């Protein structure tokens, strides 16, 4: 009897569990009985689906503290009217999908975000539009979550009045895929995160960096486009980063870099394109990185490598039509350049093996002069400068003698 009771009890328990897992559906509409998200969340049990009907919900600081799904219809908008947060996720397994989040408030005290995820895992944020939020999506101590197919657009004009688009802090195992981020302070920002995959995002016209991260080992960037950001992309104080197939383009300005690397070690930069940047790649105090198969096209400076960077390898890259190919601040060189294609290479290939017979000096005298006296830039392409460069190439006096590519390719590497 007792055994049987136990069996029935167990069965009922299981059924309830299944019921619970399946969840109820709660409709929220501006003119319905449930007309705010807050009400719906109060009614909802775990695993319920809250369906947000078309309309504008003027709510702020909405706390989601149970595993629910919020799914919107077209033109369902949650608007904080410029004060506080919009949504705060504090539960695991929350899904947010298909609606718009607006106007998290600008603040000098709090990092108000359109969506704040705090100490949660298994969160999925997809197909959302985030418009004019101070911060866009803010993950703090989150893990095992996905942010995909979202559009984040802000129209801040000053860095202090604009937060970051996707901001990660102390998080782990997050996938950020196919988002568009525009007009924020930093498009994507990480600090102290690990094992993050960032794929196929577009980060453009952000006020400061398209992407900015520090102290975040073992992250992967693939297929992203960083375009027209105030200062390009900066990666700092990190080991084992993999950057492949990204585009860094049109980052113009006095402190703009396609990719700025500071204290980066053991990382891979493969198959990226650096095009039309003031400086394509800037490297400082970084070591043992491999830079391979990248295209540097039409940059002011393709590469600036500070002398405190060592044992980096620059192999089989294409340097095409850059005003300056490589510049550095020392006559010493502790890095390896080999097998690259340099469009400024003037040598010949008598044995026709596709490799130039004389080494290429990618550092011009003029770039050394400019490093000392930036105003000289205005003399670029002067016949005089051409003569000085040629003389220096023949008899190096000021340029690093050792910084040469002994196997310059004759044709662009495909």
């Amino acid at each position, binding site marked *: 009897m007792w055994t049987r009771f136990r069996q029935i009890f167990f069965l009922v328990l299981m059924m309830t569990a299944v019921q619970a897992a399946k969840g109820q559906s709660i409709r929220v509409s501006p003119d319905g009985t449930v007309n705010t998200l807050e009400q719906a969340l109060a009614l909802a049990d775990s695993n319920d689906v809250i369906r947000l009907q078309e309309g504008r919900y003027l709510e702020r600081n909405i706390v989601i503290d149970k595993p629910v799904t919020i799914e919107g219809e077209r033109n369902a908008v949650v608007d904080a009217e410029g004060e506080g947060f919009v949504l705060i996720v504090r539960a695991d397994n929350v899904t947010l999908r298909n609606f718009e989040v607006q106007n998290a408030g600008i603040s000098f005290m709090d990092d108000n975000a359109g969506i704040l995820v705090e100490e949660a895992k298994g969160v999925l944020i997809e197909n959302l539009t985030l418009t004019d939020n101070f911060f866009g999506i803010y993950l703090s101590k989150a893990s095992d979550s996905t942010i995909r197919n979202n559009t984040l657009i802000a129209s801040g004009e000053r860095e202090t009045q604009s937060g970051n688009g996707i901001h990660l802090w102390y998080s782990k195992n997050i996938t950020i895929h196919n988002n568009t981020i525009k007009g924020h302070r930093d498009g994507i920002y990480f600090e102290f995160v690990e094992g993050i995959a960032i794929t196929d995002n577009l980060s453009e016209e952000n006020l400061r960096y398209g992407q900015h991260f520090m102290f975040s080992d073992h992250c992967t960037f693939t297929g992203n486009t960083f375009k027209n950001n105030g200062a390009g992309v900066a990666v700092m104080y990190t080991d084992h980063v993999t950057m492949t197939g990204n585009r860094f383009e049109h980052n113009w300005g006095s402190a703009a870099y396609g990719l700025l690397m500071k204290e980066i070690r053991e990382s891979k930069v493969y198959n990226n394109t650096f095009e039309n940047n003031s400086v394509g790649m800037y490297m400082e105090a970084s070591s043992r990185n491999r830079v391979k198969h990248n295209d540097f096209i039409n940059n002011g400076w393709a590469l600036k490598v500070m002398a405190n960077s060592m044992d980096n390898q620059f192999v089989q890259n294409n340097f095409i039509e850059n005003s300056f190919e490589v510049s550095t601040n020392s006559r010493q060189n502790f890095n390896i350049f080999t097998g690259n294609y340099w469009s400024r290479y003037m040598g010949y290939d008598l044995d026709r093996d596709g490799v130039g017979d004389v080494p290429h000096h990618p550092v011009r005298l003029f770039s050394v002069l400019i490093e000392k006296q930036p105003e000289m830039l205005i003399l670029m392409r*002067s016949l005089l400068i051409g003569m000085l460069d040629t003389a220096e190439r023949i008899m190096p006096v000021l340029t690093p003698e050792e910084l040469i590519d002994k196997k310059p390719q004759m044709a662009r590497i495909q």
Partner: protein
Amino acid sequence: MKALTIVSYQWKDLFRDKWLIGYALIYLVLTDALIRFGGGGPKALLSLSNIMLLFVPLVSLIYGVLYLYQSREFVELLLAQPLDRKSLFAGLYGGLTIPLSLAFVVGAGLPLFYTGVWIQTGFGTVATVFGLGIALSLIFVGVGFLFGLKYFDERVKGFGFALVSWLFLAVLYDGLVLLLVSTFSAYPLEKAMIGLSVLNPIDLARIGVLLEFDISALMGYTGAVFNRFFGSYLGFVIALSCLVLWIAVPAWRGLNLFNKKDF
């Protein structure tokens, strides 16, 4: 109107001289080769611009002086006719600058056109390069005329001054700027540099080329100062005015000399 008649006769006369055809052919072969072997359109146009910055002033200067010397009989013949000196000067000036500019534009332009590079690089860029080439032709023919008139009976001196002035503007001037920058490195020199470069027409044209091809570099660093200046409406107007002044002043001085000259 009479100036136009002179231009059209000069035109015929110049084309009978194989010189001008050769000049156009050099650009044609060069541009074609640059496109074919130099690695693509924009680079070819950039190399062409570099060559233009040196070659056009040099050829225009030498041809300007030479042409004036060669036209002596023609001038004396025409001055005995009911013709004012202004028209004659305009005819001589137009009669040289138009074929010379055209030789450059057609010579360098044909390969850009038949290879389709002009579409690839954009019409604006091609137009800027050619515009600068024409401006340089106008300027240096004017300067050449000036030396030719000043030393009308001392041809060696005339040529000498033409060559020295080219060497000065193309090379030495930049050397002086370089010296200046290193000497006064402690001071902010951007404005002085801008001032100095608009004074030299070759530098002015060179900056025009930089703005087309090296914008990425100009956007960074101190370059931004230059870019902001030349990219602004005011900067553009100033640069253009200087270029126009450089065309007008030698031509106008030349006309004055020509008006007073005894033949």
